[in-house]
């Protein structure tokens, strides 16, 4: 894993300032602390900071093809690289490293952008053909790894994180009101957008193409389809389970390819327990595992975690997330995450990757994506219940099934009435493409009441739902309703929040690479062939995955109720001696950022000081406002990094004034 960055002249050859590349690379040093390299000619500068995992000795980047006309900077892993390499060698390609990076470059020579179809992995890379003056940059299918860009006058800038672009920007960075409107609805920006004006993110499954004399274009190469035609209705549950089991095993097998040891996160939930058991039973008996425990009992899963550690007999380490630490490190995680966040849950993951690194590990497997792909979240079950209710919206009985999802809240009869009304929103529109998410998103939208008048004016009449609608596949309306919910969850929450704010960014902050076996595209595509009634059997979530792991895991893990991974918000920011709430949320600071209404923020603080048990919405507002204020401090009021004079590239290929 690594950080990559680059600067490209879009119109004519012109001096590329190597010092800018140096500063961009320095801003990404957490992503790649092991070595740095750059390539510069009169059109382009490519730079990379490397976290060495495969081919430790000769894999230094940038890497080139046989005649050194094509160069690549690469962040990520191609897990099927040995197989691709073998076929390329047969075609006559000569390799000078054993890295996966070099495989991409030769595959690109063979297939141009079609090379992406063959890659099984997590990646963001940029390839420069210096003869043809062509740039090709791409990001993996579901956005496990990031890539940001900006076009300014006649230049194109790109980097693994926005901070590298901000570092060399001449003008002050500002919030993008549309980006924030999206975040305060979907928890994340929609694909392509960021929280900052003028800076874009390359959407998952997309590539950028540029050739001198032509415009730069952004194109899609992969999209998730849950088309009805893909569903195999004639297959039985045991058949599906056995095929998934084989795929999972292979996905994990190739994700253990590394020249450094690979560890595993182990939370005590089904997903990470399943991965860990497969590794332990098939590939590595000496497995190292890592997990989080919480100070606050209602968030803690130690019992299940310990059960798994005992069951598999792994060498396990844990970090204990205290409320004090969650408040204390919140500013850090906003710096690395580069987005307002409505949750505190990234902090423990930041602490966990720190622990992993301290224990000498750079690579860990994690269970992310299983809930989206296999149907694990409550929102999918909720969709089923609401769909069941929508058959007869006036039914007295049907809404009572909600109790199955939220038994504790529905115990109280008075609350039950209110909640029922809450979930009834949109029940008469089962064909609304957002039927599954309308309750949740509508609730999140209330967070925007905290926006200042001026900021709301900047958002104007923009409607984020219309934009999301424009991103949906053509045949979306024909899909099964659970699949629709999955799709929406995958393109918003999973790619934009889970894999980013809780994923890559929290791991790379401490120079740790995450690998996500459930998001092997073969598994994602396979799961689109499974009838949705098998994914969630009745209201039994991840039914097929439970079948797959039934014999590998203790009954208690397979049958346990699923708890969403969360971290305390209110108690992490209030009465915390390591968190200066009143200065972070002072009227002066709030006014300076201009995003929120200071009077409303003050009332929220007073409410939180009075009451220990806040509503979900109030908690989200607290995290959202504090993170936005930190973002203001980190990036709007950006202070250029103090790059040490002696900081220089380990490898520097200078071809300036050499190319016709």
């Amino acid at each position, binding site marked *: 894993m690594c950080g990559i960055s680059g600067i490209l002249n879009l119109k004519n050859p012109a001096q590329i300032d190597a010092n800018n590349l140096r500063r961009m690379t320095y801003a990404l040093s957490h992503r790649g602390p092991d070595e740095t390299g750059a390539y510069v000619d009169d059109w382009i500068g490519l730079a990379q900071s490397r976290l060495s995992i495969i081919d430790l000795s000769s894999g230094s980047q940038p890497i080139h093809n046989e005649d050194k006309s094509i160069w690549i900077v690469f962040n990520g892993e191609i897990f099927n690289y040995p197989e691709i390499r073998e076929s390329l060698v047969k075609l006559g390609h000569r390799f000078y490293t054993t890295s996966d990076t070099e495989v991409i470059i030769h595959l690109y020579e063979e297939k141009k952008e079609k090379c992406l179809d063959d890659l099984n992995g997590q990646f963001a890379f940029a390839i420069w053909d210096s003869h043809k003056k062509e740039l090709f940059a791409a990001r993996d299918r579901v956005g496990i790894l990031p890539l940001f860009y900006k076009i300014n006058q006649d230049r194109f800038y790109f980097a693994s994180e926005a901070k590298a672009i901000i570092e060399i920007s001449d003008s002050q960075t500002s919030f993008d009101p549309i980006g924030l409107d999206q975040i305060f609805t979907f928890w994340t920006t929609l694909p392509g957008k960021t929280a900052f004006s003028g800076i874009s993110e390359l959407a998952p499954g997309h590539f950028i193409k540029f050739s001198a004399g032509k415009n730069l274009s952004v194109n899609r190469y992969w999209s998730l389809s849950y088309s009805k035609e893909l569903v195999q209705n004639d297959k039985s549950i045991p058949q599906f389970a056995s095929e998934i089991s084989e795929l999972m095993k292979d996905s994990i097998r190739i994700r253990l390819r590394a020249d450094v040891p690979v560890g595993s996160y182990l939370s005590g939930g089904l997903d990470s327990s399943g991965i860990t058991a497969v590794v332990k039973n098939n590939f590595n008996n000496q497995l190292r595992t890592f997990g989080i425990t919480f100070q606050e009992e209602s968030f803690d899963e130690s019992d299940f975690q310990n059960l798994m550690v005992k069951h598999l007999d792994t060498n396990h380490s844990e970090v204990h997330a205290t409320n004090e630490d969650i408040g204390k490190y919140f500013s850090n995680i906003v710096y690395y995450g580069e987005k307002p966040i409505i949750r505190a849950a990234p902090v423990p993951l930041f602490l966990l990757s720190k622990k992993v690194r301290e224990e000498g590990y750079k690579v860990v497997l994690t269970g992310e994506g299983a809930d989206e792909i296999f149907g694990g979240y409550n929102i999918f079950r909720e969709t*089923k219940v609401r769909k*069941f209710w929508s*058959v007869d919206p006036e039914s007295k009985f049907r809404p009572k099934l909600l109790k199955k999802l939220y038994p504790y809240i529905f115990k109280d009869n008075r609350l039950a009435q209110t909640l029922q009304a809450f979930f009834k929103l949109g029940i008469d529109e089962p064909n609304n493409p957002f039927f599954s998410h309308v309750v949740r998103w509508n609730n999140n939208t209330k967070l925007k009441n905290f926006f200042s008048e001026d900021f709301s004016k900047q958002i104007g009449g923009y409607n984020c739902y219309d934009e999301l609608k424009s991103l949906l596949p053509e045949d979306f309306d024909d899909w099964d309703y659970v699949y629709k919910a999955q799709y929406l969850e995958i393109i918003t929450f999973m790619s934009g929040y889970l894999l980013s704010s809780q994923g890559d960014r929290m791991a790379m902050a401490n120079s740790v690479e995450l690998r996500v076996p459930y998001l092997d595209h073969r598994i994602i595509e396979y799961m689109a062939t499974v009838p949705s009634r098998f994914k969630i*059997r009745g*209201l039994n979530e991840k039914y097929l995955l439970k079948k797959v792991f039934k014999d590998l895991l203790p009954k208690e893990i397979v049958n346990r109720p699923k708890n969403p991974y969360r971290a305390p918000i209110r108690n992490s920011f209030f009465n915390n001696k390591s968190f200066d709430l009143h200065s972070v949320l002072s009227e002066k600071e709030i006014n300076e950022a201009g995003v929120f209404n200071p009077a409303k923020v003050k009332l929220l603080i007073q409410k939180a000081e009075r009451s220990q048990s806040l509503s979900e919405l109030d908690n989200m507002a607290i995290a959202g406002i504090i993170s936005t204020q930190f973002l203001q401090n980190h990036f709007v009021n950006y202070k250029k990094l103090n790059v040490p004079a002696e900081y220089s590239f380990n490898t520097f290929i200078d071809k300036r004034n050499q190319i016709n």
Partner: protein
Amino acid sequence: MNASVNYLETIKQFIVDNFLFGDGKSLVKETPLFEKGIIDSTGVLELVAFIEDNFKITISDDELVQDNFSSLNAIDRFLKSKNDKAASQ
């Protein structure tokens, strides 16, 4: 509903998986589902949702009475009569 599909077996398997956590030895067609505490008032809605989801039928509030779901036999009778009604329409 397709009569050739062994729907009762599918329903039984669902009850075993979902309410008995795999332990279906003692579940027979006559087992009283409510009296034995296998299914409660929320459970019956889960079962109805499952039946609707898997067999593409709709069960009205009027039909949501305990008698129709009191045992596998009762469910069988109920679904058959529902099917007959649908066929005669």
